[in-house]
Structures are given as structure tokens and as C-alpha cells.
């Protein structure tokens, strides 16, 4: 296990302007304005929050996993990571993190990828891509499936080995741990609170996350 750095936030939940608990299997799409801070709390531990960010004014300018990891020369996301868009803009910065590491290689679960990974009969299980799809459809304004790009998995641990292997490890998160991002422009955040039951990304027990927003 590599070094994990924990950074606590000075922000007080009682001063948040928004406070919402998102059950597992549910989705959330919300604008976060420049300078505001969004905190995602893993309430019960080992929960994956599959998250996408968009430039609020142009959805084609969206979170890019490859640009983000390449520009920081590292595959894990933690405090100080700039979340970079497909056009090279900084959408948001991770400013606090009591988990220490987050994944952006594993993507989201989908009905079809569950079929490939586990069994053809798994098509009927709830999954993150369906949550993303429904949120996008409700959001409207021209958003479609092609806006569902490669996401962040907050609280998830997906190490790469020196031999180029990819493994899905038990989470490094625990109940009450959180991550905070500060919006560097007006952004839209899309979250699927992962319902996956086929692997340990949620410890086989999907649980709620809490979402808080502070004004600058």
C-alpha cells in the first residue's frame, strides 16, 4: 500500500447551504457554482460514489480521467488533484480528503458491463450507468448518452501493479470519511451512488452518501 495523505476540512456542516443524503442506487445532478465547495461523505464506509463533472455552460467540456491523471503524473486522486476537463480546463480541485485515495480508472458499472464481467443474466441488476442515464434524461437541455464519459469513483481503491495489472481492492474508506471539491468554474456534478452487488467496491452492502455544499 502506498502512502495515503489525509487532509481535514475546516468547514462546519451547520453552515452548509445544502445538505442532502443520497441513498444507494439513486442519482443526483446539481449545479455547483464557482467558489462553492461540495463535500461527499461516505456515511457508513466502503461506498463508491460514481461522479462526473461538466462545465455548466458547455457539456462537451467535461471531466476527463486521462487528462487528470496525466497532468498530475499519477493515477490516484486526492487532496490537491485538479479535476481537468477534456478541453484542458480545471473544473474543480480536491481540497480535503479523509479517505486518502480515489479511483478514476474503473469507470461505472452498467447492465452490459455487468453481463461481460459476471454473467449474461446480470443484465437485470440496477447499475450506475442506468442512474446516470436517467439523471441525464431528466436534466434535458440536450444532454444524451454521449455525455456519460469516464467517471471518478470516490472512496474506491483500484491499484495498478508494476506489471500492468488492475485489481479491485477492499476500500480504504470507512464510515464518516469524506472528500471535498472546490468548483473552479460553474460546474454540474452528476453522481450515481453505486448499487453494485457483484464485487467488493461497496463491500456488497451499498449505503447512503451525504452531500453538502458551502458558499465561498
Amino acid at each position, binding site marked *: 500500500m502506498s502512502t495515503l495523505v489525509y487532509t481535514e476540512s475546516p468547514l462546519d456542516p451547520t453552515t452548509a447551504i445544502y445538505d442532502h443524503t443520497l441513498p444507494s442506487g439513486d442519482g443526483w445532478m446539481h449545479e455547483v457554482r464557482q467558489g462553492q465547495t461540495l463535500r461527499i461523505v461516505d456515511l457508513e464506509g466502503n461506498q463508491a460514489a460514481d461522479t462526473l463533472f461538466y462545465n455548466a455552460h458547455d457539456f462537451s467540456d467535461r471531466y476527463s480521467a486521462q487528462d487528470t491523471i496525466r497532468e498530475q503524473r499519477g493515477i490516484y486522486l486526492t487532496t490537491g488533484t485538479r479535476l481537468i476537463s477534456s*478541453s484542458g480546463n480545471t473544473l474543480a480541485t480536491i481540497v480535503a480528503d479523509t479517505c486518502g485515495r480515489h479511483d478514476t*480508472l*474503473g469507470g461505472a458499472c452498467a447492465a452490459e*458491463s455487468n453481463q461481460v464481467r459476471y454473467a449474461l443474466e446480470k443484465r437485470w441488476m440496477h447499475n450506475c450507468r442506468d442512474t446516470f442515464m436517467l439523471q441525464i434524461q431528466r436534466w434535458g437541455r440536450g444532454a444524451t448518452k454521449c455525455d456519460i464519459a469516464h467517471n471518478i469513483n470516490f472512496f474506491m481503491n483500484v491499484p495498478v501493479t*508494476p506489471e500492468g495489472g488492475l485489481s479491485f481492492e477492499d476500500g480504504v474508506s470507512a464510515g464518516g470519511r469524506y472528500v471535498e471539491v472546490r468548483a473552479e468554474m460553474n460546474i454540474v456534478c452528476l453522481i450515481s451512488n453505486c448499487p453494485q452487488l457483484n464485487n467488493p467496491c461497496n463491500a456488497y452492502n451499498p449505503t447512503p452518501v451525504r452531500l453538502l455544499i458551502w458558499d465561498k
Partner: protein
Amino acid sequence: MTNETLLYEEHVPGGGMWSGVLRRHTTLRLTDLEGGANVGLLAYRAAQPLDRLNLPDTLKAQYTAKLTRGHVLMSDMGHALLSLTADTVGWHDPLAGHANAAHVRAKYGERNYQQARNDWHRNAHDNFLIELGKHGLGPRDLVANVNLFSRVDVDAEGRMAFHPGNSAPGAAVDLRAETDVLVVLNTCPHPLDPSPEYTPKPVKLTFLRTPPPDADDFCRSFRQENQRAFTLTERLHV
């Protein structure tokens, strides 16, 4: 291989780009003519381009952070798009993405068309957009790409480092289409290539008619996940 028929060849200069539909069970062989080439590559199901290469799905299904013989490039709809049926390189990068105009200018300096004609500095992002546009696709369709012939190592701390000398002159990789696949590629430098000189390398594209994969096909039987992706893909053609 004995059962392959040469269809045609194309020569892509360094900094160049190409796109086209690779018909089901034809193979695109990419050859690094001089060594040190990089090919940024995207793939879409030609009949429905919303069904497209998804590297997270590809990597997690095959528990890999590199690509080589046996691996299959999978779509976000659970389909096998391109199978790596042969590979003398051994490691292709699915992590580091591609550079845009600002990256190339910052790294190599300004060299525009007015100054340099067709020896100008081209960048992978713009080349992708140009080729995608020819097929009615755009920035929202530009997803995470593969970098053929390049290798990026990841250490225990998660740090990424470009691995020099990964591809020798004459090295080749074969991509077999498992359905009709729109392939979009360019030969711009890898975004982490430390060379201070802009020296993108040429690549030869060889199009081959190849036999359909049988039950024992290496890529199909490489993992159970691949078998299921092949099954879902064959259902497109019943």
C-alpha cells in the same frame, strides 16, 4: 498467419491521421516503421457510434492496465470491438490520453502551417476532432483513447512514467474487428514522450481479410469475460 488476404496498405506519416470502417473479421495491422511510434486510437461500432470504446470497461473486464495480445477493446455496451490478435510490442498504453494544441505548443514551441507547411506541429486532440467530424461525431464523442506502441509505467505510489524504447522498428500489432468498427487514429507523439523535439513517427496500415474467430480463438478464450463480450457481439449479427 496463413489464412489472411492482403486488401490494401496505407502509409500514415508522423503527425498524420486516418479514419474508416473496418469490416467485421477484417484485420488492421499497424507497423511501427522506424521505432518509437505512437498511435492514438478510438473505436466506435459503425452501425451505432453511441456504442463506443470504453477503456474503463475494457480494463476492468480483463483486470489489466496495459493492452497486448489476447486483450479485446470493448465498448460501453458490452461488445467486443477490436481484438489484439497479434502483437510484437507487448505493451500498449490505455492510461495517458492525448495532447491538445496548448500542450504541444508548451512542449515544442510554435510551428504553424504558415511557417512549416505540412511539417507543422499537429496535435492528437485536433486530429481526433477532424476525423470524428467526417463521421458526424464531435467533442462529446471524444472519449478516452488508447496509445498503441507506447508504454506508461505506474509505480506503487500510483506515479506514471513514460517507458522509453517500448517499440522497435518493424514492431506490429494486429486489430481484428468483431463487428463493423469505425476506427479513428492519428500518429501524433505520446503526451508523455520526453523528447524535446517534435518527431512523430510514420506507421504503415495493412488491411487484411482474416478468418472469423473460432471457438478456440485466442482472444475469445483469453478470459470468460471476453467470451461473454463475443457472445453479446454475435447477437448483433443474428
